[in-house]
């Protein structure tokens, strides 16, 4: 199959990739660009461990081809922290212990961030629906819901 040249901006850096058109976005991010924070946990678009944000929207990185992200802005978990400073959702996850083994965490953080950016004043019910696509086998989700609620309530808002 003929390879294609694409340009993807990941966490503010533009990458030029020469790839097989079948390459999934998550493969491009992990195997070509080398950012391994995003994980893979299934082959059926079920678990959400590979969730990234494309132009503000949470997307499972195994559900789109890298070529579909050509020319777009992608944010991965590595893009949440800026110059050593954690983002609000990361701080909240730490405070609430909203992770254990951490394997789902990268994807969960991206779903949480995209959801909160879109829904600044959610109910807990809406929060739960908002992360339905992400499986966490360790926490039972309640700590994640608390972390998201505390971000929504402005606990981490900067003056």
């Amino acid at each position, binding site marked *: 199959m003929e390879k294609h040249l694409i340009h993807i901006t990941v966490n503010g850096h533009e990458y030029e990739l020469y790839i097989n058109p079948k390459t999934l976005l998550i493969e491009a991010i992990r195997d070509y660009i080398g*950012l391994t924070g995003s994980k893979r946990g299934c082959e059926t678009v079920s678990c959400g461990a590979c969730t990234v944000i494309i132009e503000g929207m949470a997307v499972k990185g195994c559900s789109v081809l890298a070529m579909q992200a050509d020319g777009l802005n992608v944010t991965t978990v590595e893009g949440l922290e800026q110059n050593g400073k954690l983002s609000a959702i990361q701080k909240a996850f730490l405070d609430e212990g909203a992770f254990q*083994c951490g394997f789902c965490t990268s994807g969960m953080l991206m779903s949480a961030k995209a959801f909160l950016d879109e829904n600044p004043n959610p109910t807990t019910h809406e929060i739960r629906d908002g992360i339905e696509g992400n499986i966490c086998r360790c926490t*039972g989700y309640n700590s994640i819901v608390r972390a998201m609620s505390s971000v929504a309530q402005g606990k981490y808002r900067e003056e």
Partner: protein
Amino acid sequence: MHNKYSVINTPVHNVDGIAKVTGRATYTFDVQLPGMLYGKILRSPHPHAKILNIDATEALKLPGVKAVVSGKDTLGIKQGIWRRYKELCDEQVLPMDKVRYIGEPVAAVAAVTEEIAEQALDLIEVEYEVLDAVYEPFDAIKKGAPEVHEGIERNLNVTRHIEWGDVDEAFDDADYIREDWFKCGGQHHMCMETRACVSSYTPEKRLTVYASTQAPYYTQGLLAGVLGMREGDIRVIAPYVGGGFGGKFELDGAMFCSAVLSMKLFRPVKIVFTREEDLIASKRRTPMFYYVRTGVKKDGTFCARESRVFTNGGAYTGMGATALYLTGFFHSFPYKWRGYRYDGYRVYTNTMPSTSMRGFGAPQAMFCSEQQIDWIAADLGLDPIEVRRKNGHTPGYEVPGQAFIGSCGLDQSLDKIEEWIKSRGKLPANRAIGISAAGFMSGGIFNWFDTPYSFSSAVVTINEDGTVELHVGCQDIGQGSNTTMAIICAETLGVKVEDVKVHSGDTDHCPADLGAWGSRQTLMAGNATKMAAAEAKRQLLEFATAKMGPNIVYDLDIKDRWVHLVSRPEKGLDYTQVVKEALRGKEGQRIMGRGFYTPHRKGMISPAYSYMVQAVEAEIDEETGKIGVVNCVTAHDCGQPINPIGLIGQLEGAASMAVGYGYLEYMPFEDGKMMNPNLVDYKVIRAPEMPECEVIEIDTFEPEGPYGAKEAGEGLTNPTAAALGNAIFHATGLQMKECPILPEAVLNAFKEKREKEQEKKNA
């Protein structure tokens, strides 16, 4: 409660937290070594077949394929984690001559890409002679059933007998006897990180293994056994581990096949299971058929219990032998029986092996026991909480010949749950609250691995600036043991958590430890850590005492980096200064403390037991059979909590897995084939279905545990399915004897109930 500690039970961030929330935490799944090849495993399509021939000629011709290995490329050593007992070492990870379940490894390929390795699998020709297979224990135990392992009569793998008291006399004394049969299904660990391993064998004849394991020392020991190597020549590194839950401490196909391939090629080989492989060819919670006969007095006093269990062992033993013992013991829990008799039979079948999973046989035991207790209470018109209170364990109780109970907060737990139930008031129709009591161990005492090492070990080294290196062999698989050990070390030494760097998950640099299973780490590794830190502290205090020169009846302590006289805390020295000067006094030798823990004279099971009572509020839709869990409240006695954020997380996590076991997580097999090996069809709890899980801590102190701590986080998997069953019973009158409780089963039970009522009317 006044916290007399500086660090213990104060909320601290998980010590691995920043690495995890920034995506920097590197799992075996992420490991990439120079020159690394990718491995794939060819798996048996048959539940039972002889391997007649394996021809890899065509596969080896595929460009990019570097090697194909099968059983004949190995030493053919049968391995098992119960390595003290040769007869229980029954598994060749790449079998020499026959396969015993669908998905069993047959051959493995290494290639330059995963895709090529996958393509090569299709080119390997395997000639099988298909044999008759058997899938259920009651079929497999019959005379003349196909033999899963040659010469094992009736496929009986392990039997267990537990008995105390005069059981028959105690039954004779009972006013009421009830007997029931139950069926408890399997459950998959479903770790987010599937089984993964990178093995790298080098010309020094040393093997380095990155593995997703709960117990690096077991991985090291088991690999040494099957590869014919010395343990010391194998280094196992478990970087971050994406979940374990009891499924990742045996030797798996990824570990063995990647090691064999790497030894052949002298190149690193990485094998990662797909989700489907993980679901069909790792292991699962042990399915059990339970017969329970219980005799009680009219007033609800327990007299005797007799139970028989037949478990579907699948193809190999693994940790299933332990599950068979623990289910029998915890089936008596947490009550006093004058007579108790248990017989367990683990039966080989041609299905995926069953093993330990969070709760380790106890969730099945509780599902049967705790429901039957509610039914007996209803039969006799008694209050189910009162019945439990009347018969429950108390501090200082001895389970005859089995266990000594130190701390026990069962009574207080019952009180708290009773209060909570009252606070809920009247509930809508089709909604009710069910309860279940439970308990669990804090690490097992039996040395079936036959290790010559202590069960847990720790080394504490203090640097000249007062920072601390803590080396432990216990494994953090997400449950937070690194944080727990940092807290115990900081508390003991009198420093801050951020002063302590925890080193774990590397057999070259950390002392041996039996790892993360059976809720052993807080108590066992915690005691070892405390001992090591205390030893290092003693060396500092020797020096400080000499320097300060107090009357010898006064003692010194360190808190918040302040070395001081206990009777006059204001009189003291700066901790960092003491460290610096103490080093000079020792000719620069580092201050180092060693600690260990090995249980002696702690009964047959464990040094300490946690207790809990859980209330599950559930609603049942009579039209669809659908179950919704509204609330899951637990009164919980884990002794002294060490790490409060971690504790809540563990308890909520246990509840999510246990609620899943109660009504969702179902593993149907047809002719030995798992019918739902993917995350679309194998359902786990997702955020919207997860109930609120309030926890009420019961304040106790466990004398065997570090700072009074004992088990937390595994035991809470035990009560939930039973409490859910009891909620359904109290809402509808239905007695659900199969777990998970599926909507179809609820609908059928409703139908049967209506038919019976109709029959009664007609009569």
